[in-house]
């Protein structure tokens, strides 16, 4: 969509002790687009997100943000750049209301006193800007919200800070059909509002419903990053499970699982 990607990762390596979790990973994320990050369990999706959000330091590799090389050493650095993560387990406090949760850790103050009216107004504006009308009162406790509403609040919280990149970790994993549609619609709206969105998902239907690009991780390596329109459902599944699909994916075996060619063929054969 735009010429320079908002975030570009090059050659990211990350090990936990002897286990190398990420190997020479490259990723580009464009503003106004939803980039789906897919991969099997243990492929390194969560680790990659934690590297981007500054929770884990990387061993090697560079980050370019808006074309400028940056260093992300802590969650605060990431927040400073406008990177917000919506975690799988939501990270909302049940005993606080919607406004309190949205401003948690970054409360607006006048002097030492909390500036509740301003926070409430900003929260209302953000929710209205995302066309969220499912919550009746901003002052209700998060505990009284449904799963979809909570996810909505968590996403709105991430958007509140004029963020440029929002990373969503399995936002629909625990939701019903109608709520999933609601959240996906919201994800699409974030991108249409000009934000860069990274969506981690296991659900291929969700991925194809909202994403513009798909990035597939396989055993810690980025095996493909393609436009969603240029790839089929089956090809993505092959990339996730075998790391290659026809011309896409790994070209040479890296020896990580010995004889990788054989299972790749058998799986792709099975799917076709």
């Amino acid at each position, binding site marked *: 969509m735009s010429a320079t990607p908002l975030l570009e990762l090059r050659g990211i390596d990350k090990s936990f002790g002897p286990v190398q979790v990420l190997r020479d990973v490259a990723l580009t994320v464009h503003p106004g687009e939803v980039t789906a990050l897919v991969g099997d369990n243990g492929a390194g999706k969560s680790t990659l997100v934690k590297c981007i959000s500054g929770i884990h330091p990387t061993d090697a590799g560079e980050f370019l943000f808006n074309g400028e090389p940056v260093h992300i050493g802590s*969650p605060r650095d990431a927040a400073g750049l406008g990177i917000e993560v919506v975690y799988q387990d939501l990270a909302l406090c049940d005993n606080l209301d919607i406004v309190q949760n949205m401003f948690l850790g970054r*409360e607006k103050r006048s002097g030492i006193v909390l500036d509740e009216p301003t926070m409430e107004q900003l929260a209302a504006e953000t929710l209205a800007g995302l066309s969220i009308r499912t919550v009746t009162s901003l002052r209700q*406790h998060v505990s009284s919200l449904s799963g979809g509403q909570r996810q909505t609040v968590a996403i709105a919280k991430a958007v509140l800070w004029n963020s440029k990149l929002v990373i969503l970790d399995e936002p629909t994993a625990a939701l019903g059909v109608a709520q999933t549609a609601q959240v996906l619609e919201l994800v699409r709206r974030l991108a249409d509002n000009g934000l860069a969105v990274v969506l981690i998902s296991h659900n291929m239907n969700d991925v194809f419903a909202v994403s513009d690009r798909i990035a597939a991780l396989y055993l810690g390596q980025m095996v493909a990053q393609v436009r969603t329109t240029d790839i089929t459902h089956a090809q993505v599944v092959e990339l996730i499970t075998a790391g290659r699909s026809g011309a896409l994916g790994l070209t040479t075996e890296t020896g990580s699982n010995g004889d990788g060619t054989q299972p790749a063929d058998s799986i792709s054969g099975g799917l076709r």
Partner: protein
Amino acid sequence: MTTTAVRKDGPAAVTPPPSIGGHARTYLSRVRGGDVGALPAVLGLIVLCTVFAVMQPSSFLSAGNFANLFTQGAAVTLIAMGLVFVLLLGEIDLSAGFASGVCAAVLANVVTVLGYPWWVAVLAAIATGLVIGTTLGLLVAKIGIPSFVVTLAGFLAFQGIVLLLVKEGTNISVRDNVLVAIANRNLTPALGWALAVLAVVGYAAVQLLRHRNRVARGLISDPIAVVALRIAGLAVILGAAVYVLNLERSRNVLISSLKGVPIVVPIIAVLLVVWTFVLQRTSYGRHIYAVGGNREAARRAGIDVDRIRISVFMICSSMAAVGGIVAASRANSVDPNTGGSNVLLYAVGAAVIGGTSLFGGKGRVLDAVLGGAVVAVIENGMGLMGYSAGVKYVVTGVVLLLAASVDALSRRRAAATGTR
């Protein structure tokens, strides 16, 4: 991302306009949903007072006994106010009782044995509380020992420190006029009225300003009638209390006159206002609730969880120090049992009876005061009816159990109805 014009059809506009009836309905549905707040404590207080008033009309209802309630319950209430902070994180401080004893012993040593002025002694006692709280907090937050174990160890150790400080079983008297006055003297009736008026005017100003601010910004706010009712309610309660306390309670007016609000009452009131402000209106207080509600979420929001955890133990032990000072003042002395026996359990009981959850994340400083009142009324009323200490302990235990059951059941109810 959006303009203020969009806000008109925002989520805030969906809520029906506020009215008194609507306000009452919202409250009722909240109570039915399991969010009972301080309701059990208030109802309990009313029931207990009615029972004792019927059984012992002459002694329980006298102005002198009313004043006694405040001085009897003061130390426990103050310790409970500090405990609320620890309970809000779902932690416990079992050492608060003897921490108050240690601080009281420090106070007595500084003022009586070393002969320093009263304010040096008070500062030394509170500083002792801060040191105790910091130590407990560091052990819990940084080393990761459960607070139950850390403070249980503190409970035993501080008991020993009190013994050492008061030289094995003797007691140290506290004769300083200012210190003795805290729990034994009264404000002049005029000063009592002045402070009551000041409190009501201040409360009204805060409430009305907030209401005006919210209305001016187009936010949902409580109807003005509800705000007025709240102010009037406070005025009536304070007015009645000050009126009764200003009645003559001396047995023989010719020998000495005894009337006015006990000095400990404004001390509790000021601390109540200060700590309520800290909890409800500062980001520090908001972070305490957040850590108590979901520690991981708080950590991800950038809150320094360890700092919060250490600080609540510091607040708790400092408030225990204040409680210890009041206890020393009331007894005119410090002995090895100051802050011992039932003080800690009454304080925890007061916080829980008032509506502070043992599971963390829910509670107010006002809960400690309401719960402290319930505990004081039981202690006082049962004493007047001539029951033995044994019966008093049993009844207090049963009331605490009731309060904890209300807490647990309301949580279950809330989980079922989805309000929590």
